[in-house]
């Protein structure tokens, strides 16, 4: 059993009839995820790859008892999809959508704070627990079960590290993407806490990048952890004031450079890797 999800997770796909939604539904099913329902307003009554489609999350929850949801709807409708999932008691909401306005996300996060729902993302690849379940878009073949937890702000870079870990014989307990936007539903700390409490996890790889202070904010918590954390921060060569792909990856005049982050980690005694290969080498020495 991984953190966040497991074999019993009953997944709802919001935006299941879209091109990405239907493709990824198939991928998740192939991985072993229990996809129990889909929602696309106006498409209720259809099925996608054997999954019943409903007009509303309420119906999906009533009929199929979904307790987790993944969101593939366009940015314009994504905030509303999160509200709908939250109001219907979905415990884990994974938002893949990239490009949601930051003003929408500020409101959504304030709203979710007082709910029972946890939001992963937006603009993240989701969460995968090898051998149990996958929510999101991480490629199926890269994962292998094991004891290393992984939490990251990025997508493909995470896949690369997972892939290298697997190829080196190091399996993962759970891999989590918290998303590359300025504002994330879930912080590094919250995921690190789950890994710390998870008996299956023995070490954690944390992949950060420029922009904000989400990485530094986690340092005090990491110091108290019993498990080793290996950090990797990208964007050493990023100039100030430019958005590097991810909406959140921007060095503002107030700070947020990779160097600042790396120094903060190192002076707190956290090992920092130089590249994906370096990370895997360090992990291999530990586990």
């Amino acid at each position, binding site marked *: 059993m991984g953190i966040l999800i497991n074999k019993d997770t009953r997944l709802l796909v919001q935006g299941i009839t879209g091109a990405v939604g239907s493709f990824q539904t198939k991928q998740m099913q192939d991985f072993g995820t229990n996809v129990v329902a889909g929602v696309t307003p106006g498409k209720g009554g259809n099925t996608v790859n054997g999954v019943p489609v409903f007009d509303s999350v309420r119906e999906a929850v009533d009929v199929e008892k979904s307790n987790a949801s993944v969101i593939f709807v366009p940015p314009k409708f994504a905030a509303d999809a999160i509200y709908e999932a939250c109001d219907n008691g979905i415990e884990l909401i994974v938002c893949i959508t990239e490009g949601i*306005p930051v003003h929408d996300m500020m409101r959504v996060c304030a709203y979710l704070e007082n709910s029972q729902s946890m939001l992963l993302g937006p603009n993240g690849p989701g969460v995968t627990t090898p051998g149990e379940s996958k929510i999101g878009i991480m490629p199926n073949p890269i994962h292998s079960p094991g004891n290393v937890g992984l939490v990251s702000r990025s997508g493909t870079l995470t896949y690369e590290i997972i892939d290298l870990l697997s190829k080196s014989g190091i399996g993962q307990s759970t891999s989590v993407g918290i998303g590359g936007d300025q504002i994330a539903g879930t912080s590094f700390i919250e995921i690190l806490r789950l890994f710390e409490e998870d008996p299956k996890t023995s070490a954690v790889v944390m992949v950060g990048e420029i922009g904000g202070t989400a990485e530094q904010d986690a340092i005090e918590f990491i110091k108290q952890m019993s498990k080793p954390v290996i950090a990797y921060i*990208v964007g050493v060569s990023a100039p100030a004031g430019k958005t*590097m*792909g991810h909406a959140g990856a921007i060095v503002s005049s107030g700070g947020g450079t990779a160097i600042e982050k790396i120094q903060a980690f190192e002076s707190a005694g956290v090992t920092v890797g130089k590249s994906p290969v370096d990370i895997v080498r360090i992990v291999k020495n530990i586990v």
Partner: protein
Amino acid sequence: MMLYEYAAKEIFSRYGIPVPRSFLATDATDAGKIADKLGHVVLKAQVATGGRGKAGGILRAENKHDAQVNARQILGMSIKGLTVKKLLIEEYIKPEKEMYLGITIDRKARCPIIMASSEGGVDIEEVARTSPEKIKKMHIHPLTELHDYQAREIAIFLNKDGVTQIIDIIQKLYRVFTENDCTLAEINPLALTGNGFIALDAKMNIDDNAMFRQKFMEEEEDTPTATARKNGMSYVGLDGDIGCIVNGAGLAMATLDMIKYYGGEAANFMDVRAGANKEQIKVALRLVSSNIKVKSILINIFGGITKCDEVARGIIDSGVSIPIVIRLTGTNEEEGRRMLEEHDMILVSTSEEAAKEAVALGHSHK
């Protein structure tokens, strides 16, 4: 997206925030005519960046002739790589006191933050470092409006004698901020004059993600960044000579870092995003290779939704003659590699190898 000052001031004015009278000019003749009408004026280069003053992009003129001379001097100049094509000619207003007022987003607190300083017209980050007591900050709850008491507290902090008018300006600036999806709405300086408070400068950054509901004119149409954006990709120009094309922002930054680690310097950041097709790859290659400094190109694709064969087709079709190092892995990897091998492309297996090879390739071509 950062708005030009004149565009931000138009919006301020629409919301009732006092700004000086001003007109836009694109040549010296017009600048002279406007100065003739307004009298003592300030000519301000319209470019979407800070530091215009230091770069000589802001000059005063007391008459038509001086305005023309100064306009000629500013128009066409380059400020942080941006060419000045427009001038804002504004009546000159002498401030009795300069303050700072801005609203931005506090990423950690996940809410807007309002910042005010009794010291304005200067770099606010500098003030924050040297005299933090001169700055007052307040978080705004995203689900409620700016509370009246907050506007009042900021106003009392800024200037006890003009509380009513400052409260009004703060509330209007907050409306500007929320209704226009700003990531920054700033008045620096907010000037106290004989006629009350007035915004002498205006800065607005608009959330790129909100463009579907905000209609702002795109100012620079011809940059690689703008072209990339139009094609659903992300490009940032850098100073080196190795062109980069990567899928995923994190992997792209990691690739840049590895190039640097191996002694090279990237010419650009480029994220082609998930699921890039043949045409997008072609556009990406065209953009990256159009930079005359580029000596080699690194393509690093970790295929998930992105299909390796599609990428390979784009590379082959692009006809780019600059040497390319390619790392392709993931979905349809074998087909993609096979196609590229048929065209004698340089294929490597890992990001590290790709970076190392691209650096070597660049050096050998010097």
